[in-house]
Structure formats: C-alpha cells, structure tokens
C-alpha cells in the first residue's frame, strides 16, 4: 500500500463510528479511497440510521486527514449502502480541461479594445515572476496577437518536437502566441469553429513547464475565444482591465456579466491609463478621467487591484519589447505592477 494510504488508514482507525465503540474501518464505513496529488477521494457508507452523524463525521475525517503531510484536500462521497458505494465508482465526469499543470489560471480580460490589456498581462506576469512565482503566458488574442512584439519575439517561430509545440522562452517565462505561428503580415481570418480548433490545439499540444500561474491574455469583448477558454480550462478567475471613462466601463460590465454566466470569479478590476502626469511641469491630467474603475469595483463588490498611470515608459517598453517591470524594475510604475500582483496573490491565498 502507498505510504500515504497507510497513514490515512491509521487515522481512520482512531475515528470511531457513532457511539458504538468501533472505528470507521471495522464498521465498514470506509468503502474505498484513492489519493490523487494532494487530494484524497473517499467513498463512505453511512446507513440511514446514522444519517444524523454524517456531517460531523465528514468534518472530523477532513480535519484529521489534512493533518497528514501530503494531503491537502478531502473529497467525500457519502453513500447509504455498500451496493450504492460500488455503483458510484468509475463513473465520474471526465476532466477534459487543459492547463492542469498550473496551480492558477488567470484570464486578463476587457470589454473594450485598446485599454492596455496585453500591456497589463505581460507586466503582471513579470511582476508575479519577480515575486518568486513560476509564470507562463498565453496570448489568446488570435486576431491581433501583440505579446510577441512586447517580448521582442516577433521573428521567432515555435518549434514542433515530438508532436508537441514548444513554447518560446523570454525573460524567464514560457509563452505561446498565434503571432509566432503564422506570418505577422498575414491576417488571421477565422470563423468561430476555426478559432476553437486552433486554441484547442495550442492548449492540448503545447509542452508547458507548468508552475504557479498561467496568465492568459484574451482578446477584447465576449466572443468565441472567451467561450472556448471558459469551456476548455478551469480558470481560477479573471482580472478585468478598464480605462476609467464611461464607455469603457459599460463594456467592462458586459465582460463581468459573461464571466458570471460561466462561473469564473472576477478577482479584481485594474484601472489603466488612470491619469497623465506631465514630466515637464508635474501637473496631473486625467485624460480618461480617474477613479471610475475603483468606484465601479465598489458598486459591483469586486476587489480593486490597482491603477496604472499613462506613462511614456510603459508604452516605450511595450513597443521595444522590453516591458517596464523587467527593464526598469525600480521605477514607480514597476512598483505599481508589483503591488497589483501582490494584491492578486493575496486574494487567492
């Protein structure tokens, strides 16, 4: 027997079933157990007579099992008879999801285009990396991929090795983009089913290293790409990037509505292009207004992760392929991105 299983059995022997003195192994309560990664799956038999103690028993088992080093989660399947327990085995739904090699899959989304989603995605990824996390990046904007330019990889093409697509490595992260699969000048003109197929191929066939965070840069809006990603992965949540003016907020609301429909939690809002501070005179001009996103997050009861000002360095860094978080790690903007990343980490732990 697997050492973890042995430890679990020892734990079970210490847990008594009701007040009749026998432990849950001898009372045939534990019907079967399997351990996958750090999750223990149990099938327990608790007959109708003992239904009253079912929940407290479940809690006790959960509490005791998670004390074992190597078991973090306990999933219990309560059945009422041995036959029911047997019938319940081997029929669970298939987990067809991709990107399981990442602890967190974060979607960077926006309702409106041009709000700086890709800029935020790249810098957020690098900020998470600077905080010690293992991060990869997927550019899911199949129609206008901009991550290759932002990471100075416009000329590179992905390699196929042993039927696997090898993601490109930059600044200590793996990333994939349609921009590195087709010619830059060639327009991608795909109908919905083609989008779905191409994304599924990237998700299925990429040789990802795995890690703490997979950041997915989505195209703007609520279309095919969003649906495909929502169906084929088990996203931890989304961060919605928005500029503070009213039209952008309107679209952001639609994006949040869509994520609600597909059960993906909105982890927070980010206000980009918050205001412009003149480098010559120091006067602050709220070009797209300021504070609108923070107010919206209050109204919608979702966390506000931070605001990023309009700053020349961010744009220059993006265009030159040297993202500001990596190229100017001590700048005020880089610090703001890191603060945002820390807020995100905190909200997940």
């Amino acid at each position, binding site marked *: 027997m697997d050492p973890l299983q042995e430890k679990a059995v020892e734990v079970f022997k210490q847990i008594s079933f009701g007040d009749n003195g026998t432990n849950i192994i001898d009372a045939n309560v534990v019907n079967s157990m399997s351990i996958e990664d750090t999750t223990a*799956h149990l099938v327990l038999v608790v007959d109708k007579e003992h239904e009253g103690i079912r929940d407290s028993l479940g809690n006790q088992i959960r509490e005791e099992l998670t004390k074992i080093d190597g078991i973090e989660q306990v999933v219990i399947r309560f059945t009422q008879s041995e036959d029911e327990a047997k019938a319940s085995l081997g*029929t669970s739904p298939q987990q067809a999801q991709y990107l399981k090699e990442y602890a967190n899959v974060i979607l960077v989304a926006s309702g409106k285009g041009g709000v700086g989603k890709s800029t935020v995605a790249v810098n957020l990824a690098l900020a998470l990396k600077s905080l010690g996390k293992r991060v990869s990046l997927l550019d899911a904007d199949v129609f206008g991929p901009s991550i290759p330019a932002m990471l100075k990889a416009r000329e590179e093409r992905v390699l196929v090795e042993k039927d696997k697509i090898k993601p490109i490595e930059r600044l200590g992260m793996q990333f994939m983009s349609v921009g590195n699969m087709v010619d830059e000048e060639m327009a991608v003109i795909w109908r919905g089913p083609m989008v779905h197929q191409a994304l599924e191929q990237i998700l299925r066939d990429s040789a990802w290293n795995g890690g703490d965070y997979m950041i997915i840069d989505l195209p703007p809006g609520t279309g095919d790409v969003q649906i495909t990603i929502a169906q084929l992965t088990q996203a931890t949540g989304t961060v919605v990037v928005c500029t503070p003016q009213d039209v952008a907020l309107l679209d952001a609301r639609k994006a949040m509505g869509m994520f609600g429909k597909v*059960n993906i939690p909105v982890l927070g809002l980010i206000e980009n292009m918050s205001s412009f501070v003149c480098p010559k005179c120091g006067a602050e001009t709220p070009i797209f207004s300021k504070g609108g996103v923070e107010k919206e997050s209050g109204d919608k009861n979702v966390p506000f992760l931070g605001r990023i000002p309009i700053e020349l360095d961010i744009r220059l860094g993006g265009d030159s392929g040297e993202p500001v978080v990596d190229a100017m790690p001590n700048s005020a903007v880089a610090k703001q991105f890191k603060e945002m990343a820390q807020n995100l980490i905190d909200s997940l732990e």
Partner: protein
Amino acid sequence: MAADFKRTIPEDIYFDGKMHIVWKNGDHTIYDYWELRTACPCADCVNEFTNERILDPNSVSKDIDVHASAYIGNYGLEIQWSDGHAHGIFTFKDLRDVYPHETRTLN
C-alpha cells in the same frame, strides 16, 4: 461572492442509477436520468428562439442510462446518454435552480 460560487461549483459528481452532485457548500442533490434527459437544453431538444420544447418526452425510453460525462469549464456538465444524444450542456446554476432534483437532507 465566494459563498455564491461555492453554491454552484460541484465538489464531486457521480452516477449510480441516479446522478449525484455534492456541491462545494456541502449540499447534495440527486437527479433522475429520465427527468434530466427530457429536460435537455440543447438546440435539438429546445427551439433556440422560442424556447419551445422540440423533444417529445414519450420518445425517451424510461430506462435511459448515462454512458459518460465531462466537465465544461467551471460552469457545466455534458452528458453522453445511452440513446446516443450528447450535445446538451447542463449548467451548474440550472442544475441547482431549474432541473428537477431531490436534495439529500440530513435528518
């Protein structure tokens, strides 16, 4: 927000002649295969524009069975039925609030 999500995210799903879902918040709901199959929300079974039911429930055998199933992202379940039908996505929200089920209670 968190509590709401726990209500519509399953911790475990299994089939033993009925479909069982144990939700993250601890609730346990049970579904009859025939009732679920005849409530299939796909475009072959329900008119997409008028919401009129196309599927005649009498055409579904009472001993309909489940062959396989798969999670659809965070939000739904696709079931492959013994009559070959496999298109409908049963969303977790509707499995909680719309499709007929019994709730396994503790007392």
